[in-house]
């Protein structure tokens, strides 16, 4: 039992290593010097995290705006929404406060 687990773990480790090698090869990081490797990893990582953060922070708001834009008369959604109080904030209407 334990041996089988150990084997599976080894297999997984090899698989992950293999994926990492493929990632390095496909992004040309494999032939870079050490500082360039760090640079590329950071560059790619920051791009990716920016993308993830942006999709977390802005996409729901934009979706709500889009829905409001498409069905302006229907209040069903906003009433049914559990946090309709906050929906103004999410929708990015907070800028009005600064304008007035």
């Amino acid at each position, binding site marked *: 039992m334990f041996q089988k687990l150990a084997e599976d773990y*080894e297999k997984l480790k090899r698989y992950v290593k*293999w994926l990492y*090698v*493929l990632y*390095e*090869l496909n*992004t*040309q990081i*494999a*032939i870079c010097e050490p500082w360039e490797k760090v640079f590329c990893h950071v560059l790619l990582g920051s791009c990716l995290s920016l993308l993830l953060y942006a999709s977390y922070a802005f996409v729901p708001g934009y979706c709500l705006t889009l829905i409001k834009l498409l069905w302006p008369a229907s209040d069903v959604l906003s009433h049914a929404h559990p946090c309709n109080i906050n929906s103004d904030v999410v929708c990015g209407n907070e800028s009005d406060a600064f304008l007035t």
Partner: protein
Amino acid sequence: MGNFDAFEQGFASPNGNGRLPNGHGSPKERLSVEPERKFSAPAYTEIRTRRCNAKAAAESKQASSSSYHPEKKAHMNGHASATREQGSSTKPNQAEGKLSPEKEHYQKTSFEEVPMHTACLTYLGFYLLMILGYINQLLFVPKVATEKDREGYVALYDAFESFYSRYVYRRIKDCWNRPICSVPGDELTLKDRVTDDYGWSFKFTGTETRCLNLGSYNYLGFAAATGRCADESEERARDSGLAYCSSRCELGNNAQLDELEKLTARYFGVEDAIVFGMGFATNALNLPSLLGPNCMVVSDEKNHASIILGLRLSGATIKVFKHNNMRDLERVLRDGICQGNAKNGGKPWSKVMIIVEGIFSMEGSIVRLPEVVALKKKYKAYLYLDEAHSVGAMGSHGRGVTDYYKVDPKDVDILMGTFTKSFGSAGGYLAGSKKLIDFLRTNSHAHCYAGSISPPIAQQILTSMKTIMGEDGTETGRNKIMQLARNTRYFRRRLAQLGVITYGHEDSPVVPMLVYLFSKIGAVVRTLTTRHIAVVGAGFPATPIMEGRIRFCLSAAHTKEQLDYALEVIDETADDLGLKYSRKPRDPNPIEY
């Protein structure tokens, strides 16, 4: 000849490895260098992750029927003595002629499309490398790359070219220009070198690696340090010396070269031939003597650099047609002839010439000669056929693509080729009608000003050519041609079965395997080196940016065991590095040798 004493000693010492006797390092010295050092270099960092464990290695060993390994085998020094008995299934390297030339071409030639994501990754990766290169050039310039006392001078070298070779190509520079220290036969010995500064400079470790050679244009296996060719060349060096130190027009002419020209003409079945000491110059310097500014040249887009240089020197109008595309060739020809010379007010061209190669060395494709000949006759153009790679390697008699397609060699106006590849020597030839060759003898710069071929080199050509023609009274030449055809078909089919993308015609012994990405060229070459296989990579600028590739060159000297070993290793490497791009259906049946 007193000055031959040292030379003679070198020849007399029986060194099985083909190692030069003055090669550096006595055995003691070599022992003192720790063997680990060699494998600490980037060139030897093996990239095997999935099957690297002992169990998988044992499994793969059991799976392979033969126990061939370049390190184990007693060295034959590249001599292809082990040419096997011919089985009944062997067919010569020849167009079948059952279908029309066009249909047969489409059936046998494959240029598979690149997967979309790989194309994107290749371009993005290339941009990344360029950006990193510019940052490097701005911030970190090592001492080896700076020149002293050059203030106020303009740059002597092309800026982009030197940037590219320093900051992009340097990263995988260890995969090219690798020094060898043996005859490049079916196996060769690589001199190991390491780099401590990422490719700026290299140091020899003093160790050597015996590798299976899949990188030499040794199609018929005549590159050998023993055997009849080598013996006769050595003999010739002893009684005629090494060079005439003069051009053919002056004192460099001799009976041997006349014999060589007559034999070459007979070999191709044409009236006359002329030989030169350098293959590249044969193209680059003879095209200007044949063409002038009022000529139109229709040239294949994948033609070799020597042809392009020759055409530019000639000043002729160059029109390029798509690679091996007969419809495009006809369009370009028709338009060119209809419109005439635009620079000369639309007057007719004085000459129209089509230039194609027999086997395209980077693509591994074969020219569609019957169709080109038909077009040439239709439009009354001249045809210049560069058979650098195809001579010896193609056709049932080894006479090149004319033999392969059974086209009358007299239909091709100018047959050009080199002795460097199949004949295992050096130099080039032009063959054609007596009139043409006489014209070249008086007008060619390569004939008038270049030194004549060295006697031992000419002897190598003579002996190997006679062997191929069967004039030495043995079947060796014919067996070699058969062996090459067989190896080619087997290797190409097995590669296709593995699922890697290969380009070209199934009968061409040049097999480019597409790896696309710049880093993968390096990874494949390095990994195969650690597994004792020597291959050649090719990337930008030799190929388009997109199409980095590994080029295998097959030889008649390879045996089935060697090819099986190579294929097994390539299979593992392709799995590990993700090279199996092909989306074609794979042949499930085992391939017959």
